């Protein structure tokens, strides 16, 4: 089946199988391996991407469902070669260890800050509880999200 959608700002037309998952389309066909397979059943959040601005688990979505929509992946984040404030904050606060969960966290946090630019710490933690990290204990990740939110506040 042919679908047409906007991927990281570009129009794309691709042929997909009716049962193909968005995660597999991105990774196996389009070479975007930033979204990760961590469970395939919606538990770990490593495959998080934005669909029309909403965070979705690409392991649970069929590729055909994005027809006519806009998909943003970690590779598309940041503008004009500059990092997104979240990406910067993740580097600065030591929020990355193995980094396998990082793309999913950043995309989920991106959606959070769009929705709620000044989240409290508990709001951050509740929002991100669908993203698992086995390395950081979440402390520096939460710090990073707070830092990015702070900076965005200064910017606007």
């Amino acid at each position, binding site marked *: 089946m042919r679908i047409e959608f906007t991927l990281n700002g570009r129009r794309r037309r691709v042929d997909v199988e009716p049962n193909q998952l968005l995660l597999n389309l991105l990774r*196996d066909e389009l070479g975007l391996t930033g*979204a990760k397979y961590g469970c395939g059943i919606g538990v770990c959040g490593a495959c998080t991407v934005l669909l029309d601005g909403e965070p979705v688990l690409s392991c649970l979505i069929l590729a055909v469902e994005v027809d006519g929509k806009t998909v943003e992946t970690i590779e598309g984040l940041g503008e004009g070669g500059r990092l997104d404030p979240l990406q910067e904050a993740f*580097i600065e606060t030591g929020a990355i260890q193995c980094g396998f969960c*990082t793309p999913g966290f950043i995309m989920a946090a991106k959606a959070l800050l769009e929705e709620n630019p000044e989240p409290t710490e508990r709001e951050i*933690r509740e929002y991100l509880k669908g993203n698992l*990290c086995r*390395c950081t204990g979440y402390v520096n990740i939460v710090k990073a999200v707070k830092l990015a939110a702070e900076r965005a506040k200064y910017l606007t």
Partner: protein
Amino acid sequence: MSMSGKSFRVLGERTARKDGLARVRGLERYASDYYLRNMLHARVLKSPYPHARVRSIDVSEAEGLGATVITFRDIPRVRFCPRLVSTPEATYKDWLVLTDRPLYVGEPIAAVAAESEEEAQRALESIRVEYEVLEPILDPLDSMRPGGPQLHETILLGDEEVRVEGNLACRLEVAEGDVEKGFGEADVVLEREYRTSRRYHSQLEVKSALVNPEPDGGVSIWCTTQTIHNTRLLIHEIFGIPTSRIRVYRLPLGGSFGSSIHTNLVVPIAVALALKAGRPVKLAYTREEDMHDHSSYQMIFRLKLGAKRDGRLTAGELDMVMDIGAHQVQAYPLLGCVVGWWVSLYKLPSKRYRGRAIYTNKVPSCAMRGYGNPQTTWMVESMVDELAEAVGMDPLEFRLKNYVGKGDIFWGQGPTVKSVIESCGVEEILRRGAELIGWDKRPKPGEQRGRYRRGIGLGRGFHTSSAGAAVPGTVVDYSGAILKVNEDGTIDYITAMVDQGGGSLEAHAKIIAEELGVPLEVVNIVAADTQTTLYDVCTHASRGVYAGGGAALRAAREVKGKLLELAARVLDAYPHALEIRPDEELGQGIIYARGVEGKEITIGDLTTMARHKNWGTIASAVSFRPGSCPPHFTAFFAEVEVDTSTGRVRPVRVVAGADIGTVINPDLAEGQIHGGFAMGWGLAVLEDTPYDPETGDLLCRGYITDYKVPTAADMPDVEDFKVFFVETHEPTGPFGAKGLGEAAKNPAAAAVANAISNALGVRFYELPITPDRILKALREKG
């Protein structure tokens, strides 16, 4: 500044990790992110039974579909041990790549490779297997009883065939001093049984391998591993491919925590398929398959300790039975480490130990961050609290009175690896931590009555930094480093050591920059593989910074010597009078004669001149074996709140102190402790993989929906988690540094368990301390 009064330029600074950029942009490539044109996709046929014999296997239909199929018949029948860290006389071998006698649900029987995953799956489902189903044994204590099912008739110890009696995989006994006399002298003797759970690593990246068959008969491998060189050695051992034609790439790991110290089975399976198909093959496990691939060691301890009224310990006796599942990964060395962990916490004038590793029809156990130390520390720290109470002493003072510290003999890595402790910050950790948490104000056990009850607990521990020793022993532990200076003054650092995520290689780069006097930016950690690196044993045993950094430091020293030598020629000065300083503007190091103006040259200019004058490449290659494995120390103070009507526990505050010698990456080091606590929390209150007695399969059948690990919402707020470092200087470590990765976790569960006991006035002897267990204990207490 370090304790030695030395101040560092790069070490201890907060710097952005070099691989951070790729990681936040989603461009870091892990094993499963590699694809080759023309590659086949593989699937593995796994035993649905915990114990069976394959009577017949028919793969004709699968082959008819065009798939490449392998069974045990296609792979050399070499019994092996997937972990090659120990020397042959300490290595038990009982594995086959594919088996006709499956010993756990999920053991690989056959594998297929086809053009797509879907086709591979279809081919897999067409394989007909006839099993003779055998009686399984799931409980290690039952397994030891005579007359029951036997898993292995014989196994290999090195190359020697040994009989297995009563499913006893291996055993170790150690005694020192007169234990009877010791207990006779004690005023209080306690004896308890402690049980831990079987946890799953739940590393975010599942096991995977991509193998390309090369025209020369060799193979190139991209896989999840903590050791590229041991992976290569094992593939050589099984398939007989010349070692130099096996190329294993060093890749980032999406966490591992011990689950890839050994070569994951996906690797030899993919190699066999690729060799047979003559095409690249990719095999990536699903999460459910991954959960049927590895687990932690479950331990059942019987511990007896004696103490005098003044709090001094007199004797100890420990009997440990561990459930290792169906195969040995590293059970035998672990028996030695458990006694090491035990006796190196507190001074025991006399002690006796018996450790037994038992086979069961379960997923094979392997190291999981701490290698038995978290379990052992929970046991000891639980009893130490009880003993302190029994003799009427503050548990913290009791610990200070008995701990193994500076000047004491240390046998953390087991009875054959002894050394003397040269750096120790335990007392400062405990005193400062106590102050920060408000130790003096903690509640009296059991005095609270309301629904929500709070308690404060202490857990203290350590881990060895590497498995180095003054003598060879039975553990291989050395690292290699190659350094090359480039014509623009940048430095290439080439190492086989894998970074599990903690930032070991980042630390190496800092050590090199510090020693050479160059900006950190010019040290480039280059992509590497087995063909281009010196041997490194494995990233385990918290050896990344200490042993790998030790090699990097020595390589840097050599290069520095060469740089100064050549600069001396150019500048007409004496090499020993030259120094190197970083020039941030030029972005490289400048070699100069102190106090003499104009006598200087950049490293880039010098290297370029060396090229034009044909002096050769300024480089070094160093293989380094650490002469000891010094303990790094930690303590956790945890405050928890127990909801007595639901039995749920919540962490309120955490204070953690650590002595890791010189701190190299401060924020990454803190991150280790944060992550260590989360994993310790899981061990204490959440994680276990129980089995279904009917099917012999995991009760959760591999679905992580039913394997809860801590989430962001379960952990305390940022400002309620305090981490501090007491800086000591480890004379044997690079710039005084020690390890951290495992002590960052080891005593965390103990602190949580002791906090729960402090809140409720009840002790728990089995992990995890689930809501059900808490409610039951409260009911029993009345």
